[in-house]
């Protein structure tokens, strides 16, 4: 597949259909390719595609859309949901993107440059097809790790007493170093100025001083991406402290599914999200009993 991607990229650059190609570049470590824009055909020998190409390139398309010309971008099935969601939110200029959907056999979790198994998101992946593409480069021989229940972790947490649940989250969030990697990598976190960065507000803390602050950042973020989070798993992948951020987002996804009907953010570029489409006059409010659940 890697070779096919190089050829495709080379053609697009050669005949001027594309100004640049957004893919993954070889580095000193096979396990750590780097998201990169290729503009010269000669550099394409550095373009790689393997199970370590975990970075979701959709977010980089926000900036790419502001540059001249078309950008070719390689997207795995799960990445295409983020791309769609960004198009829906008018963050990506669809006309300036040439989406090449690429097959995925799951991404590896890497620690200290060693392959230590699968990324959690790949173990529960439900996004097997590309929901947006201009062209597909597929490899049918790629098989994924056996799928586990995506909501299993959330269900387990729901089964705990509220104090136990509080302790679980306090334990997770107290290790947060507020590096903002989860926020900055998140395609849904595309605000130009985040409330946590703005000197105008007391929320602009650079460290968690109190347990309240630890929770505030994550809960505000989870609510702000509610209904827009595609469960791409990037936040959990990049967290240097391995905080189980996916559980927070998936709890909200699960609640949305139960309260408003099954919904997958990024499935298409038109359907309004359930929280956006909700009409207080005509739609029934979800029961308070459920929200306390």
């Amino acid at each position, binding site marked *: 597949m890697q070779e096919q991607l190089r050829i495709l990229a080379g053609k697009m650059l050669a005949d001027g259909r594309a100004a640049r190609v957004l893919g993954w570049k070889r*580095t*000193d*470590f096979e396990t*750590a*390719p*780097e*998201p*990169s*824009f290729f503009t010269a055909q000669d550099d394409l020998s550095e373009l790689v595609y393997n199970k370590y190409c975990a*970075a979701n390139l959709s*977010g*980089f398309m926000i900036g790419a859309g502001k540059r001249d010309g078309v950008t070719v971008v390689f997207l795995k099935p799960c990445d295409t949901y983020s791309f769609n969601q960004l198009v829906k939110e008018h963050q990506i200029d669809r006309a300036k993107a040439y989406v090449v959907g690429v097959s995925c056999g799951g991404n590896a979790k890497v*620690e*200290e*440059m*060693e392959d230590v198994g699968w990324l959690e998101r790949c173990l529960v992946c439900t996004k097997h097809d590309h929901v947006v593409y201009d062209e597909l480069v597929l490899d049918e021989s790629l098989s994924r790790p056996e799928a586990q229940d995506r909501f299993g972790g959330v269900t387990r947490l729901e089964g705990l007493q509220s104090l136990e649940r509080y302790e679980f989250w306090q*334990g*997770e969030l107290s*290790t947060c*170093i*507020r*590096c*903002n*990697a989860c*926020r*900055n*990598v998140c395609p849904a976190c595309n605000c130009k*100025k985040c409330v946590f*960065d*703005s*000197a105008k507000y*007391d929320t*602009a*803390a*650079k*460290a*968690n*001083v109190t347990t309240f602050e630890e929770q505030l950042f994550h809960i505000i973020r989870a609510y702000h991406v509610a209904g827009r989070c595609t469960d791409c798993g990037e936040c959990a*992948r*990049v967290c*240097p*402290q*391995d905080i*189980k951020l996916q559980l927070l987002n998936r709890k909200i996804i699960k609640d949305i599914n139960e309260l408003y009907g099954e919904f997958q953010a990024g499935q298409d570029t038109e359907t309004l999200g359930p929280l956006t489409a909700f009409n207080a006059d005509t739609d029934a409010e979800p029961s308070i009993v459920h929200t306390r659940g």
Partner: protein
Amino acid sequence: MYKVSATQLTDVLNTLAGTMDVFLPIRKDGQTNFGLYAEGVQADFDTLKTVKPPKEFFLPQSESLYKGVVDGKDIHIEPAAFADRPFVVFGMRGCDVLGMEILDKVYLGEPVDRFYEARRGHGCVVALACGRPASTCFCKPFGVDASDPQADVTAWLCGQYLYLEPVTERGRQLTHKLEPFLQDADAEDVAEYRQEIRERLEALPYNNLSLDALKDADMLEVFNSPVWDSVCDACIACGTCSYVCPTCQCYDIKDYNTGDGAIRYRTWDSCMYSDFTLMAHGNPRKTQKERFRQRFMHKLVYHPSTAGGQLSCVGCGRCVNKCPSSLNIVKIMKSLGVS
């Protein structure tokens, strides 16, 4: 040199914890960070590098400087107290120890930072040799000997023993507290282990980087290099590299509204952030390229120009390991000519 049977490690730690705070690596949910030891806590000396660097015990991620309390028409200023409790950081790696030397230049140079000075004055460092250095490590080019890290006490966990070699007076006082457990040992006892470590280091990809290209680098030339135009393309502007770095030293000062006054505190900052050094007139570095460049100019050019050529990186490799976009200082050094 002394040795203690590894089976007595808990007794050693409990003895120390009886007279001072003991901070050591503790594993939790798959990641290891330094934390306060208490009886029953399991130390993790196997993990090579903690996520957060142990500089936090001398330069905490956030600390109060003073409190302003409104009292009628008055405002009382209550300065924060200086650290006065002795503590030991047990199990620092050689790179992190060198990181402290770099922080010392900044925080103990004039004007001396009293908060930092107080912590430095009360803290003892036990450095632990790196049995299994990682492929991201490159401390040797910075002069670190991972097989013999120099701090108040040097320690080796090898075979059935913990070997201890006090280096400074403070280190001797610390080992003195452990007298009941100590047996005499000889440098020869760890010689083979040290040799093994050096061999492992030799096999690592970055162990023999030559930093010559950065010596006497021309500040303006590096600053204006076209390299910066594209090298930060993948940067997502998070603060991971800064917050895991043992030498990153920049802080921000902020006020916390307490309702009846304010707490003025400082926190680690990252030059990757859009509000880094934000001033009334705006931000002097408006683009990510400029902010990204700042991090590496500071480490590779600005700091050396004021510190006798010493780079402000110790080759711990944490940023290599943790960057979400696989960027890191080695990549930047290489694009500036290091090989």
